[in-house]
């Protein structure tokens, strides 16, 4: 029998038993669709998180005060150190040629009030460079100007939510608000960023770093954000930062430098592993569908014993019989997989439209491997029934024994 004959014959028998074929396709389809959808979810989460980190800025290095000796352990998150990381340290870092700009950050919390309304929020003290390093957008007004970072000018920029809570829809620019026990003039409001990892930039007030230091009576910085000149300059910037701080801190290495790429890479790895695990669990259902195909094919062989006998009596070789049944198994699994991919993609599009925030997309490798696994299980589980059919004795089969 030539290939087309094998295929038409197999397709004919697949179409002949409609109910059973549909159910088998359903089983395979569920398996493939769930793999496609779950990898899309995992991949979407991965892109979302890494995208969030990348949106923090480019070529970013973060300097934290304090250092823990255990390598691979978490950095000292809210470390107080005997020797502060100061504004002068930050400004010294800026002198490195690998560094484009820096934004020192001092944080604390204080009540912000306007007339009778008060709200306790996070206060960030920084410099004009903060806007560019973090790539924030202004909704109105301006950010504070690039004057001497040591001057504590009484100006502030409000986050979108804080502005709304204090001023409602009214204008905020030019008004005086009280932060802690000091008065600041609002010079701008931030555009609503929607979401951001680590800091809720909606509910904050940004003041000049010197003003924050005076407000909290503390000279220590919480972080220094450093933007390197280019991707290639990141390692050099890192070395320079460590060298400069060591010189300024009497030979003591008491800061931790994290590169943004390292953080992104870590999250990338975690989410990839998660996606793989979830896809692995879902693909167990592919194996179950494969078992079903084997079962259905076994039934088919026993039901079509006479047919096989007739084919053999007409001169079909064992190989040809085997190919017929294998083709049938392959058709079942392939069409099922195709249906699953179609359903999976439809569901992804639906979710995508309902929640545009989550960038859902199935990686091609996931679809390919799901279909491949479906095919392989189908064929693998088809071998046993096909061999049983091929081994039938034509005389006994025709006699119906």
């Amino acid at each position: 029998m030539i290939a087309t004959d094998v295929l038409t014959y197999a397709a004919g028998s697949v179409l002949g038993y409609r109910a059973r074929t549909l159910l088998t396709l359903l089983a395979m389809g569920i398996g493939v669709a769930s793999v496609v959808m779950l990898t899309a979810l995992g991949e979407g989460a991965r892109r979302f998180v890494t995208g969030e980190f990348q949106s923090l800025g480019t070529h970013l290095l973060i300097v934290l005060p304090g250092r823990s000796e255990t390598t691979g352990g978490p950095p000292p998150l809210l470390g107080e150190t005997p020797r502060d990381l100061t504004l002068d340290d930050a400004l010294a870092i800026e002198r490195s040629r690998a560094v484009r700009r820096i934004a020192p950050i001092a944080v604390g919390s204080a009540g912000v009030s306007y007339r009778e309304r008060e709200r306790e929020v996070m206060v960030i003290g920084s410099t004009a460079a903060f806007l560019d390093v973090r790539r924030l957008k202004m909704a109105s007004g301006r950010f504070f100007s690039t004057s001497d970072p040591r001057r504590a000018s009484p100006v502030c920029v409000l986050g979108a939510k804080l502005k709304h809570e204090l001023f409602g829809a009214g204008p905020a620019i030019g008004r005086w608000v009280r932060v802690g026990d000091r008065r600041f003039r609002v010079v701008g409001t931030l555009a609503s960023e929607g979401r951001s990892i680590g800091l809720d930039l909606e509910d904050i007030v940004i003041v000049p770093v010197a003003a924050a230091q005076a407000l909290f009576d503390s000279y220590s910085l919480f972080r220094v954000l450093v933007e390197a000149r280019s991707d290639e300059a990141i390692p050099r910037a890192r070395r320079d930062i460590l060298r400069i701080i060591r010189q300024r801190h009497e030979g003591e290495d008491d800061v931790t430098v994290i590169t943004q790429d390292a953080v992104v890479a870590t999250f990338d790895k975690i989410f990839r592993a998660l996606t793989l695990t979830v896809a692995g669990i879902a693909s167990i259902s592919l194996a179950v569908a494969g078992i079903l195909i084997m079962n259905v094919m076994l039934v088919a062989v026993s039901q079509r014993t006479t047919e096989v006998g007739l084919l053999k009596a007409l001169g079909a070789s064992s190989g040809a019989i085997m190919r017929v049944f294998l083709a049938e198994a392959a058709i079942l699994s392939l069409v099922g997989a195709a249906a699953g991919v179609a359903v999976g993609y439809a569901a992804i599009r639906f979710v995508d439209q309902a929640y545009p925030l989550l960038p859902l997309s199935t990686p091609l490798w996931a679809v390919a491997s799901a279909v491949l696994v479906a095919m392989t299980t189908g064929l693998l589980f088809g071998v046993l029934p096909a061999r049983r059919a091929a081994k039938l004795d034509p005389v006994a089969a025709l006699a119906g024994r």
Partner: protein
Amino acid sequence: MRVIDISRLAAGAVIAHRSRSLLTSLGIAVGIAAVVLLTSIGEGVHRFVLQEFSQFGTNIIAVTPGKTETFGISGAQISNVRPLSLDDSAALGRLEHVVAVMPVVQGNAQVEFDGRTRRTMILGVGSELPQVWSMDVSAGHFLPPDDQRAARAFVVLGAKVRSELFGDRNPLGQRLRVGGDRYRVIGVMEAKGQFLGFDLDDAVYVPAGKALGLFNRESLMEIDLVYRAGSSVDTVHAGIERILRARHGSDDFTVTTQQQMLDILGSVLDVLTFAVAALGGISLFVGGVGVLTIMTIAVRERRAEVGLLRAIGARRSQVLRLFLFESLLLSAAGGLAGLALGLGLAVAIKAFAPSLPVHPSLEYAFLAELLAVVIGLVAGVLPARHAARLQPLDALRAE
């Protein structure tokens, strides 16, 4: 037909098609095994995390500066305009039902002894730490109950710091430098291991008053207190709020009870376990489709048999029950096999990789078996109804 007859007939049909029944049950078994194993892992993680969190005791309440609703690090812990002071801590200690109270300041500094240095976590705490955090010293004493404002320069070492700085030498009584100041070692803590990635042994404990001086700050990062077991959390909670409000004049602090933490964690972990179980459930569902397929085929094959049964007086409901019972048998047997497989795998993982938290839960195992039975019933209904609706004459003629 009596029940026993129906079951004998159905069992006969199942046994007659041996390989087919085996494969159908295998499909269900794989699904159930996946559900059982995954829920075991989920339950294991659940227990592990809760245990990690309750190792400090369950009657703890933490008071942090600043008003926040989230559990993350708030800016207020670093600096704020209305600090939590040592006096606040002392005032909370006078509250009814409170057994012990302790100020906490945390930071990072270099510890030096005899030329060896190590950067490590510095915890400024009170003398009540062994009671509040349920930790114990392995040698010497913990910090004495000095007045925090004039505390003596004593230090207690974490197990890791001790071995890194002193090796085999006896550290008790030795003088070492913490961030430049001289301290005398009076005790070594028991090894406590990791807690959510933080090495608890890589730390030294000094009086909170000293730590405030070391880091040049006035504000505590946290006040931890323990209340008497059996007294109401809400009363203590309200007492804390009353005292601090009176002292500060406003609500500028956050009170977190350990119970709240555990409850929230527990519900998050429950959702996780359920989600993992649902993932395994996909396979179970596919297995159910398998039962449906095979039962559809069986009804088609045995039309003549159904016709005969009906011709000699079997009622429709009896035919229905016959096929339902058959599908039930297939899935229940598969479920049992899956239970054995899943539990076996869980036990094997526990034996060969004890670090993985696996805890087979009987509750989920029972639910999984119940699910298998329900799947069998649901998958059997359509084919069985089809069989029951057959006209005896048509069915007989089909042969």
